[in-house]
């Protein structure tokens, strides 16, 4: 309860103003108060899907024009990412060794589920636009 409303109620309680006057004052107070912005505008609607759109029409190669349209729920990505915690340590060692062989010194054991969660969270802002004379590709969240 704000201070002005409290004062009005106090005056009513002390008998300085009538109930009608108090009501009018509270109405006036509410009219003068700036309207708070709706909750929707404050928090951006969270995307639910990762969308991959690709189309190509490369006539030089003789292939027919094509189109790929994929919609993946972000929740599915989260669930998939959590499955990585099930990878047995032996497999992780093997994968690390193979990655090292091809020049990617990356330790999968360092990849924590919370890091992956964070990665998925930040996919919201991801937009990839690729334009080529024969093809276009777009990756975004919606």
């Amino acid at each position, binding site marked *: 309860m704000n201070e002005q409303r409290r004062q009005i109620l106090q005056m009513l309680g002390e008998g300085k103003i009538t109930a009608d006057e108090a009501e009018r004052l509270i109405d006036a107070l509410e009219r003068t108060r700036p309207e708070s912005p709706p909750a929707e505008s404050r928090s951006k609607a969270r995307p*639910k*899907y990762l969308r991959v759109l690709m189309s190509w029409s490369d006539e030089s190669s003789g*292939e*027919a*024009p*094509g*189109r*790929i*349209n*994929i*919609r*993946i*729920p972000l*929740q*599915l990505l*989260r*669930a*998939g990412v*959590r*499955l990585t*915690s*099930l990878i*047995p340590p*032996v*497999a992780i060692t093997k994968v690390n060794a193979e990655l090292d062989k091809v020049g990617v010194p990356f330790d999968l054991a360092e990849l924590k589920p919370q890091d992956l969660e964070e990665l998925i969270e930040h996919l919201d802002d991801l937009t990839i636009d690729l334009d080529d004379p024969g093809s276009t590709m777009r990756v975004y969240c919606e």
Partner: protein
Amino acid sequence: MIPQLVTVRRRRRSGRWSRLYVPVVPVLLVLSPLLLLAVLVTCLVFRVSPVGALRGIGRLLWALPGTRFEYEQGRTAVLVSVR
């Protein structure tokens, strides 16, 4: 929510569409003993926690609704949709 229906549509070169509707819950119920056994054996072989694996598969299954895959090239087209 668990997926209810998987729709697979395919357009052949002739231009004819063929559709396949898979009701997920009945299929899962029928195949559940086999699937459970397969998961348990796989977990034993790869030394993975069966509870964790089942939980992970459940999460994947629950997150599937809304997935859509469309591929089209020339007269051939494939559409897979999970509802």
